[in-house]
């Protein structure tokens, strides 16, 4: 991060405060959503969706990913791809078992 002057930082702080507020609201929403009368699959999707939004806010603004260099973004995309592989391939292999 190159040198920022005071005013620039204060702009950033406004953003941080907004994100903080949003995170608080989303947390409450997450808990509220768990009381909804929906199927397990829908509940999983909803919970993960809200969590993803929260995570994106933290990653994008607190961790500055929104302005980060492409090298870092690429490394993270690669990692995320392998994360999905690690999550889903064992699962699919398990559900695709032969009936012996």
């Amino acid at each position, binding site marked *: 991060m190159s040198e920022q002057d005071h005013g620039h930082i204060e702009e950033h702080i406004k953003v941080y405060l907004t994100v903080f507020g949003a995170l608080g609201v989303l947390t409450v929403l997450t808990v509220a959503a768990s009381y909804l009368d929906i199927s397990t699959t829908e509940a999983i999707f909803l919970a993960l969706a809200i969590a993803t939004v929260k995570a994106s806010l933290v990653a994008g603004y607190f961790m500055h990913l929104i302005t980060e260099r492409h090298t870092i973004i690429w490394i993270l995309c*690669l990692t995320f791809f*392998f994360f999905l592989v*690690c999550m889903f*391939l*064992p699962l*699919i*292999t*398990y559900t*695709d078992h*032969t009936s012996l």
Partner: protein
Amino acid sequence: MSQDSHHEENFIQKYIFSVDHKIIGLQYGITSLLFLLFGFMLMMVMRWQLAYPETVVPIVGSLLGETGILLPEIYNSLGAMHGTIMIFLGIVPLAVGAFGNYFVPLQIGAPDMAFPKLNAASYWSYFVGGVIMISSFFMPEGAARSGWTSYPPLSIFESGQTIWLISMIFLITSSLLGSMNIIVTIVQLRAPGLSWFRLPFFVWAQFVTSFLLVLAFPPLEAAAVLQLMDRVASTSFFLPSGLVYAGNTVDVSGGGSPLLWQHLFWFLAHPEVYVLILPAMGIVGEVIANNTRKPLWGYRSMIYATVFLGFMSFIVWAHHMFLTGMGQAMSAFFQTTTMIISIPSVVILTSFFLSLWGGSIRFNTPMLFALAFLPMFGIGGLTGLPLGIGAADIHLHDTYYVIGHFHYVVAPGTIFALFAGIYYWFPKMTGKKLSEGLGKLHFWPSLIFMNGIFMPMFIQGLAGVSRRMYDGGQLYAHAQDVLQWNEFMSISAFCLGLAQIPFILNVFITIFSGDKVDRNPWGSTTIEWSAPSPPLPHANFEGPVKVYRDPYEYSVPGAEKDFTPQTEK
């Protein structure tokens, strides 16, 4: 974090807890070579039992209990520890920790790694992990004996696994820190003018290897924690409900899955085998270019192949699990990816072969090892193909065929390449060249006896002899015709051990009474050869490094010498 060159360091700072990548590289090198020797000796005891079953083991028999005969549990321990030590305490620390640490900064013209203190921390984490691993032999429970693969449920109930798991956590941490360091070093510390496609192939190989380590090791670390919990906290991550062990129903909550371990383990362990081979291919590339006096054929294709190989290595792992009741769809998926991943290896090997064409080949010791690597890795790779096809794997899985396959790739494959690296880079590390005579005395018997040990394994495996059997297959009718190979293989193994003596002598004699050579005795183009031998503490080079050329400008038409260094305008 910078070391002032005027600062006087005491002995401890300079040699024990040094943050200089060269010292750390040597620490990794010496430690790993000692572990390799130890792992080799474990194997020799096993091979005695296989050749001369139920007889007293010479020399070490007294350590094996009252009778001096190798007991089945100890045989299993030796097997599990041989694999673990050779892979995690031997090859990876040597290939990545030693060669990577020592030569990556030098080949990119950097004064050190990006994070010198972290570098020291990764070595010491490895050292502690290694001590813990070896200490397991002296613990009441004994050493691990459930294979280097540590499959549950056996590994949850068998002795020795707890220490193994704790040690693995230290070793994995060491690898993670080390590979992170290598990635940052290569990206950030390349000298001015050293663009990506001017990097020596060795550096690219280390770069991809480090990505494999950084992204593939953590799931195994997670799995090791889970297995530790199963052993110590009575959880049942990997234990199914209703499991009966040794006649008793196991008293745990159940609901776990042994397959979960296999998935998490092989998610690492498959990329791990590419970690074992890529630095070796990198070294072979350097030695071949140098000793043919021409650039590597297909340099760019090799780089793309290496990157593609690294990427693919994450999606083939279940070819180790074809016999676990996998459905057709997933089996087809993993067979397909496995077949595809053989392509980049072929591209790299073919490029090496084509690099020889029209070259002025110098048959010095490093080149002999590098040349031998090619057909040996070829055999290893080709024998992997039937294993990657589900139908053939049904017959070959867990037989000696598999052992033959992977040993060909790692033993006369990687280890030969690492020897090539030691002979090639010895003058840079010490200022002295190893003797060619002793080198050839090391090389030729090693080549012969490597084949003597591992070729018959294909014969035994095709006959159906299973691996990890204490009696080498004696009880089985289908093994009777091929049992006679056991003695032949064991004698070859003992002779292979003897063949390493010229190498050990060579190292000591050269260090203590060899003649000094100039800083670039092989006439090489890459940047490390422009530093003094050994390179300057903490700074490596005498001045700032600037790069003007591609890595292998040998035999440039019109040049005065048959090589033009990268740092020369």
